[in-house]
Structures are given as C-alpha cells and as structure tokens.
C-alpha cells in the first residue's frame, strides 16, 4: 500500500525535498525556508493562462518574419517555415530537420500536451499515470531547446554584417517567438504533476 504524503499532513519542500508537517497554510520549510504548500498554488489556473498566452504568441511568431536577409541591398523576409523550406531546397536536410523539430514541432507538442495534461487533472482518463508523468518530464526537459532558433538568428545577425553585399537582421517575429518559448516554460513549471495522481486516488476510492 502506498501512502500519499498530503494525506498525513506532510508536505515535501519544493526546493530541498525535506518532509515537513504542514499545519498552518503559510508555513516555511524548516531547513531552507522555502514557502510550503501541499500542491503548487493555483497550478491549474496558472498553467492554463500561460499555455493560452503561449498559443496566442505562437500565431504571430509564425506569421511575421524572424529574420531579414539583405542581398545587394534587397531585403528578403524569412519566417520560421520559409526558412526551413529554403534549407530543404539547399539540400541541408539534417539542419532543416533539427530546426523544424526545435522551433515548430516541439512548441506545438508542448502546448497541446499541456492542454491534454491539464484536461486529465479534471477528468479521469485511462492512460496510465506513469506514462503521463513521463510525458510531463519530457515536456519539462524539452523546454529550453525551443530557444534554438532565437540563438541561431542572434549569431547570424551579428556575424553576417558585410555591408552592402550581404547582411542579416533580426525581425519582429523573433520577439514573439522568444516570448512563446518563455511562456511554455512557465506553463510547464507551474503545472503540478501530483494533481494527476490525486484524481486517480479519488476515482479509485469513490
């Protein structure tokens, strides 16, 4: 029989993992003085809010160009998707695949996945909890990798500054893209996986 710590009034510190008895609502960890709570506070609302914000940012990030390439003084706008198409045309398949994964597929999976996990904290689903928490850990781990395109454009814009012949500049879409990545990371951090196990417990006991 496995016991949940919160059933016994115990809460593990989110920072140092020490178990504390949580008597008053605003208690602090005896070891590292981090604020304690049984579950992350307002986890569902915050996750939903950040995920919606990320979804909204996903649209302008893909519509507006992230990079302007000047060749002989003529600007050519590149969005995330047209950039990938150009890479494929030039035959750079592995790079195209990495960029496509990091800046399109992963953010998309993260946003959809968070909505899915959030829904599962409200409605009981038959997918195993272990699978779902593995999925969550994957989302958390993938977080920073979506920043890839931001860094690539940063380096290329700084490096390719060859005057009239050729230069690269960052464009408006990049800011939206960076915001989208930060929002998905915040959403993943405010989600509390333990809620998934709570709903299972409630379902079995009812």
């Amino acid at each position, binding site marked *: 029989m*496995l*016991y*949940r*710590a919160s059933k*016994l009034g*115990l*809460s*593990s510190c989110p*920072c*140092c*993992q*020490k*178990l*504390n*008895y949580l008597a008053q609502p605003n208690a602090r960890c*005896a070891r*590292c*003085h*981090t604020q304690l709570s049984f579950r992350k506070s307002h986890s569902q609302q915050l996750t939903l809010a950040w995920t919606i914000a990320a979804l909204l940012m996903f649209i302008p990030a893909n519509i507006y160009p992230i990079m302007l390439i000047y060749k002989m003084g003529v600007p050519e706008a590149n969005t995330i998707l047209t950039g990938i198409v150009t890479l494929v045309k*030039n035959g*750079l398949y592995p*790079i195209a695949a990495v960029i496509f994964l990091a800046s399109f597929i992963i953010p998309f999976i993260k946003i959809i996945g968070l909505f899915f996990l959030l829904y599962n904290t409200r409605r009981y689903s038959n997918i195993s*909890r*272990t699978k779902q928490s*593995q999925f969550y*850990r994957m989302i*958390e781990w993938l*977080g*920073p*990798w979506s*920043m*890839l395109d*931001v*860094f*690539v454009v*940063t*380096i*290329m*814009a*700084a*490096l*390719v*500054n*060859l*005057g009239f*012949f*050729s230069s690269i*500049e*960052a464009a408006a879409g*990049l*800011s939206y893209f*960076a*915001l989208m990545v*930060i929002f998905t*990371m915040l959403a993943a*951090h405010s989600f509390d*996986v*333990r809620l*998934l*196990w709570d709903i299972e417990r409630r379902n079995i006991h009812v």
Partner: protein
Amino acid sequence: MNSCYPPHNWVACLKCDTLSVLPPISPGESAICPCCGATLFSRKKQSIERTLAISTAGLLIYIPAITLPLLSIRALGVYNEVSLLQSILLLIEDEFYLVAFCVFIFTLAVPLVRLFSTFYLSLQLKRQQITPSLLTFFRSYHQLDHWGMTQVFFLGVIISIYKLLTMATLTIGSGLISLFLLLLCSTLITSTLDHHYVWEKMEQALAISRE
C-alpha cells in the same frame, strides 16, 4: 523540538507525492520512487571536491567564453568576427530589447550565477564554514536550474556554421572552444553536485550553530 518532525529517512516523491522510506544508498547509487519511477535521491562520489574543482574551472573559462570571438566570416573581401557579448550588444543596437534580454539572461546571467553559487557553496563546505547565507545561494541554484541554456546556444552556433558555410568562409574562433569547455563544466556540475548530501550537511551544521 525534533519530535514534531517526521522521521528523517521518510521521503515524499515530488512528482506523485508517494511516501517512501529511504533505504541507505551508497555513493553512485540512486533511489527511485516505487510509484512513478522518478528519481528521489542520488548519492554522488566525492561530490564536494569534484564540484569545487569543476566550478573553479568553469569560472576561469567564463570570461574568455563570452568575450573571445566565436566565429569569424570572410566573404567578398570583407571580414567580421563576433563574440557572445557583441551579439547581445548588436541586438540592443537594433532595438530588439526583449530578445537581447532573453539571450543575456539564459546564456550569460544564469550560467554565471549557477557557477558562482556552486563554487562558493562547495568552497565553504570544504572549509567547514557554513553560514545561513549559503542557504540563499543553494536556493538560487535550485531556482535557476532549468533556465541555463548554454547547451542550446552551443547547438545554435553549430547550426549557424552549417547555414553560412554555403555562402562564405568561416573560421572557428577561440571563443567557441572556451564556450564548449564552459558547457562541459556546467553539465558536469549537474552530475557531481549531491543535493541531498549538501542539504543534510547544512542542516546539521546550522542546527549545531543555533545551539
């Protein structure tokens, strides 16, 4: 006072809240949650010494990694080189404040704070001088753990090399090598720093000093 705390070998999984009794684990082993399979604790070998050595190396390589040129480009008789710091300054010049801020925080500030806090922490633990301010340092390390992006930036440099190879001559600068070493150091710290050991050590020391 200790009677109001649960037994110190009880542990609750941060991912599914299952209570388990922590078995004695020797250095190099990990304890895994019986319910969801997440790692509860892992013991590391010679944690403090290794962390001290690696974080010192990381701090030494930090300045070269951000100031030396990462890449240089030569095309049509024009030459240009760029370092991490310069690329951020150029973003500010072009009025991309948000992107500049992101790059600054994720590739400069967070790695530095992580390196410095682990360096200070392992140094003070080695010297057996544990003060309450160390708690703040270790907490800041925990908070920033997910936000360091040196590895992503490094991959970004590699990808830009491939993208630009078709249109110009590129040379890898000494900054890129330093950046790789910095990345190595910050990755190694994650695998040498034994969180559980450090927290327990600090708890004991602070409890003694309070008495």
